[in-house]
């Protein structure tokens, strides 16, 4: 019996028992559905994290010099956290030596942040993130303003009490008003709003537009950090290579300043976008495990179900098998007939699973912030695995069928 013949025969057999066939393959269907869905979710999220998100939080080709990591990987040990807390802070006096060591094409800016109380006369007070920054900060972050202007070099120099605020801050403190030129009080000290920043959007439902930026030398400085201490020096290279160069230059300078022995590790952090992604990679790792475990469970269950149903089918069709053997079917012919039948069944189930998985992924992408995009390779994997499971599940029943004695088989009542 040729292969195509066997498939046609399998198709016919499945067709006359549609409902029974569907229930037979339900395990495989569920397993493949999970596979497609998880792969699309993880794929979509990966793309989002790596392309969209990180770009929003960390400027391209830049790194920060900090005392401890900003993006913390979830499973840092207690010892690790203690070590971080013990590290010395980055000082204002560290900045110039580091800046001198950098390649000439690098730009840098300082940033220090704190959550402080803001008030305006038009709205209720709020505790919001406030930062002092230096001149190159907006350039490095590629941030502009939608209203007003950026802080001028003179204002940086003089420490003038002016601020650029985020869209959400503008909306809250100056509802239906033009904030430019108006006054905000931070910890009771007045500042003039000179600009409203571009909308940054949101990340997992959290707004990125709740911030206030003032020159480093402005009065805000006293509130964000102890005297002479800064949170971060952000350094940007022209490209990845020059950024890495700059990183090594900064590292060397800081190690020298801190008098670190070559065997001692850094007691400061040089953080790139890779660190932010570390967290995501950890999460991705768990998702991948789930993405393998869930489909596997579905497929194992599916295989067991198919095997059992095929055993029943063989028992019911014993007489038919005997007739076929009497007419000249060899063991191989009977084996193939049932293997192909169970593989065809499982492949159909996998195809349904693919359709359901695609539907589920699209539904998820539509109703939640999770971006899910179906990956083509997962479709092929799903169908391939389905067919494989069918073949494996069918081996035992098919060999039982193949070994039947035709004389005894033909005596079976139908």
């Amino acid at each position, binding site marked *: *019996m*040729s292969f195509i*013949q066997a498939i046609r025969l399998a198709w*016919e057999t499945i067709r*006359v028992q549609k409902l029974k066939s569907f229930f037979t393959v339900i395990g495989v269907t569920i397993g493949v559905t999970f596979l497609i869905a998880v792969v699309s979710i993880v794929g979509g999220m990966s793309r989002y994290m790596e392309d969209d998100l990180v770009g929003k939080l960390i400027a391209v080709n830049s790194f920060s010099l900090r005392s401890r990591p900003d993006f913390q990987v979830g499973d840092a040990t207690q010892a690790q956290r203690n070590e971080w807390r013990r590290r010395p802070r980055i000082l204002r006096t560290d900045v110039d030596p580091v800046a001198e060591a950098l390649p000439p094409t690098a730009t840098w800016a300082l940033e220090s942040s704190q959550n402080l109380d803001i008030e305006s006369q038009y709205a209720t007070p709020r505790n919001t993130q406030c930062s002092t920054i230096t001149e190159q900060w907006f350039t490095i972050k590629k941030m502009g303003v939608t209203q007003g202007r950026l802080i001028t070099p003179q204002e940086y120099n003089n420490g003038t009490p002016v601020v650029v605020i985020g869209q959400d801050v503008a909306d809250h403190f100056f509802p239906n008003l033009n904030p430019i030129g108006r006054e905000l009080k931070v910890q009771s000290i007045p500042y003039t709003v000179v600009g409203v920043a571009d909308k940054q959007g949101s990340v997992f439902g959290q707004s990125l537009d709740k911030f206030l930026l003032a020159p480093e030398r402005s009065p805000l400085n006293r509130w964000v950090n102890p005297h002479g201490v800064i949170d971060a020096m952000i350094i940007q290279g022209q490209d990845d290579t020059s950024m890495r160069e700059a990183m090594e230059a900064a590292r060397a300078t800081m190690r020298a300043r801190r008098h670190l022995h070559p065997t001692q590790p850094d007691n400061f952090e040089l953080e790139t976008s890779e660190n932010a992604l570390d967290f995501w990679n950890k999460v991705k790792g768990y998702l991948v495990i789930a993405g393998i475990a869930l489909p596997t469970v579905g497929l194992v269950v599916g295989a067991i179900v198919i095997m059992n149903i095929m055993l029943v089918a063989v028992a019911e069709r014993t*007489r*038919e098998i005997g*007739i*076929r*053997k*009497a*007419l*000249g*079917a*060899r*063991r*191989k*012919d009977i084996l193939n007939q049932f293997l192909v039948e169970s593989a065809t069944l499982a492949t159909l189930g996998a195809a349904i699973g693919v359709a359901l998985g695609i539907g589920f992924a699209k539904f998820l992408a539509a109703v939640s912030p999770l971006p899910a995009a179906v990956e083509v390779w997962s479709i092929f994997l799903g169908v391939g695995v389905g067919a494989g499971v069918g073949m494996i599940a069918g081996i035992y029943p098919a060999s039982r069928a193949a070994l039947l004695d*035709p*004389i005894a088989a*033909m005596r079976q009542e*139908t």
Partner: protein
Amino acid sequence: MSSNTVEAPLSETAERRAVVSGAGQAPDSKWVIVTRGIKREYDMGGEVVRALRGVDLAIGRNEYVAIMGPSGSGKSTLMNIVGCLDTPNGGEYWLNGQLVSAMTDDALARVRNREIGFVFQTFNLLPRATALHNVELPLVYAGVGADERRRRASEALAKVQLDNRMDHRPNELSGGQRQRVAIARALVNNPSMLLADEPTGNLDSATSEEIMRVFENLADSGQTVVMVTHEPDIASHARRVVVLRDGLISTDETRDAFVARVGHSVAAL
């Protein structure tokens, strides 16, 4: 290897004796079936049942033979061996010049497919397939392509006057029609012999006669036919009747001699 044969008044009798005693030698091509000392034993829970104790049988081309016997005579066992569904414990079975008694399962399957056309008492058609597809089945296992299969199966159904029922399923056909489909299926691969097991057992007398006529026509046109039955009425449609008793051949005679001796009385067997 002894058997009590009442001599059939045929010139072939001597030849038959010769061919069944030539152990190890392939018989001449005019013999379709030659069995030499066929033995078949079963172990039934400690006890050994000797179904066949040394059967010598020679059936030539174009013969129409009935194999008879009461139950327990071993006729079903002999039929299974002749039909290559079973292998003997002792002796030789030559089918069309091939020694099949020592063949593997796969080789036997091939022989069944090519050389033997089965017709069963219970028809044994595939219930969910059409008449045409049922008749095509031996050709499927012979590796024949779809178009040629369809052509040959249609021709076979035409020969039994069922070409207008090709797309019917067995449950849409009468008993006689089903048996005719089975006969078409048996003939579709041009086998050396038609092997029928109680072909009229599930049919009424009128339909039985109809089927017997089909067999006669086939025998007339040159087909070798071997029919196993326990009914003397049916056996007497054949041209030669072999009677088995207790695992051995008891009588082997022409139809006329059989009818003359037995009439319609089974007891006189």
